[in-house]
C-alpha cells in the first residue's frame, strides 16, 4: 500500500491526486443535493395527487410512479442523455447541447436522478398521508378550511414527520444511485475511481479511498437526518421507535 500516492502530482491540471478525489466528492454532493430538491418536489406533488378525491389526479400520480419505478435507472439516464434533448420544444434542445458538456450532463443527471427518486418519495408521501386517520381531514373541512388549506396546515406537516425514517433511507439510496450518472459522463466520485486507477495504476489505494468517501458521506447524512428527526418529532410521540 502506498498512501502517499494522493499527494503526488496528477498528470494534468497541475493538482495533486487527492484533489481529484475531493472534486469527485463535491460533484457527488452537488448532484445529490440538487436531485434531492427535484425528488422532494416531484414526490410531494405526485404523492398528494395520489390521495386527492379526483380520479384524474390519482391516475396521473399512479402513471408517474409506474413509469419511473419500472425502468432501470441506467436506461432512464440514457433516455435523458440521448432522447430528451431531441424532444425539448423550440430552441431549448439546441441551447442545452450548446452548453459546456460538464454542465449539460450535470443538468440531465439532476433531472433523471431527481425524477427517479421522486417516484419512490411519491409512495412514501402517499403512505404518510394515508397513515393519518380520516378524521383529521374531516375535522379540518368541518372547521371551514378548504381542501388545499387542510393539506397545507393539517395533513402534510404530520405526513412529513411520519415518513422521516423511510425518507432518510431514500436519501441514502439516492446518493448511492448517483454513481450511475458516471455512465453518461458526469465526473463524480465513482468516475474518479476509474481515472485514478487509469493514471496512477494503484488499484487498491484508489478504490479503497473512493469507497471510504462514499461510506463517509452515507454516515454523515444518516447522522444529520437523525438529528433532524429528533428536532421535528411531534412532541410526545415515540417517532416510530418502540424503545
Amino acid at each position: 500500500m502506498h498512501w502517499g500516492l494522493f499527494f503526488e502530482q496528477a498528470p494534468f491540471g497541475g493538482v495533486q491526486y487527492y484533489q481529484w478525489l475531493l472534486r469527485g466528492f463535491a460533484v457527488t454532493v452537488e448532484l445529490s443535493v440538487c436531485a434531492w430538491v427535484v425528488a422532494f418536489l416531484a414526490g410531494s406533488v405526485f404523492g398528494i395527487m395520489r390521495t386527492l378525491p379526483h380520479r384524474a389526479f390519482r391516475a396521473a400520480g399512479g402513471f408517474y410512479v409506474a413509469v419511473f419505478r419500472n425502468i432501470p435507472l441506467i436506461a432512464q439516464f440514457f433516455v435523458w442523455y440521448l432522447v430528451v434533448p431531441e424532444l425539448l420544444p423550440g430552441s431549448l434542445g439546441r441551447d442545452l447541447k450548446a452548453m459546456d458538456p460538464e454542465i449539460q450532463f450535470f443538468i440531465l443527471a439532476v433531472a433523471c436522478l431527481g425524477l427517479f427518486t421522486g417516484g419512490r418519495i411519491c409512495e412514501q408521501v402517499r403512505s404518510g398521508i394515508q397513515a393519518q386517520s380520516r378524521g383529521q381531514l374531516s375535522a379540518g373541512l368541518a372547521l371551514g378550511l378548504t381542501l388545499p388549506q387542510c393539506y397545507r396546515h393539517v395533513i402534510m406537516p404530520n405526513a412529513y414527520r411520519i415518513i422521516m425514517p423511510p425518507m432518510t433511507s431514500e436519501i441514502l439510496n439516492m446518493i448511492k444511485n448517483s454513481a450511475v450518472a458516471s455512465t453518461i459522463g458526469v465526473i463524480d466520485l465513482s468516475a474518479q475511481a476509474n481515472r485514478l486507477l487509469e493514471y496512477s495504476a494503484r488499484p487498491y489505494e484508489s478504490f479503497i479511498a473512493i469507497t471510504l468517501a462514499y461510506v463517509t458521506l452515507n454516515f454523515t447524512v444518516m447522522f444529520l437526518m437523525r438529528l433532524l428527526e429528533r428536532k421535528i418529532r411531534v412532541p410526545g410521540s415515540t417517532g416510530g421507535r418502540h424503545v
Partner: protein
Amino acid sequence: MFDLDPLLLLQTAPILLKGMLITLKITVAAVVLGMFSGTLLAVARVSPILPLRWLSALYVNCFRSIPLVMVLMWFYLIVPQMLARFFNLSPLTDIRLISAITAFTMFEAAYYAEIIRAGLGSIPRGQTQAALALGMTLPQALRLVLLPQAFRAMAPLLLTQGIILFQDTALVYILGLGDFFRTAVTIGKTNGYEPAMILFAGLIYFGICYAASRLVDSLKRALAEQKRAS
C-alpha cells in the same frame, strides 16, 4: 430518428433474446444465492454468539453504504485476478459473467438479510419460547418455526427486491457484458437507431417489471386476506 425499422427488430431478435437470457441468468443466480446467504446473515444477526452478530452487522452495513456501481467495479477491475485463481480459470476465460453474478450476490445478500431479519423480528417472542419449550434446539426452531413464518410474511418484499435486482442488472453495462440492455444499445449504435432502441429496451423492462409488481400486489392482498381470515 425515432422511427424504428420493424425488420431490424425482427432480424436482431435472436441477439436480443440472448441478451435477455444473460439478464435472467444473473437475476436468477443472484436471487437464489443472495437469498441463501442473506438468510445465513440474518440468522447470524439474531444468534446468541456475539462475534457472529458483529460480523453480520459489519457485512450488511458495509455493503449497504457502497453504491452498486462501485461494487461492480471492484469485482470487475480488482477482484477478477483473485477470482480467476480461486476458480482455477485460465487467464483467457471470460470472467465477466462470474464477476457480475458474484458482485450481485454479495450485494443483494446484504439487502435480503435486512428483509429476513425484519421478518424474524415481526414474529412474536412466544413462538421462539414455545418451540424451545417443546424441546427443539435453536437451529431447529429457526428452521421449522421461525424462518418459514418470516419468509411468508416477507414474501412480497422479497419478490419486490427481486424486481429491483432485475432492473439493477442493467448496470452490467459498465462491465461491457452483453445483457439485454447493453445488446439493445449496441444494436442501436451500429444501425443508427440508438434513441429508438433505448426507448424500446425501456419499454420491455417496463412491461416485465410492471406486470411483476402487479402480481406482487395481488399476492400481498391475498396474504393480508388470509391473515384476517385466520
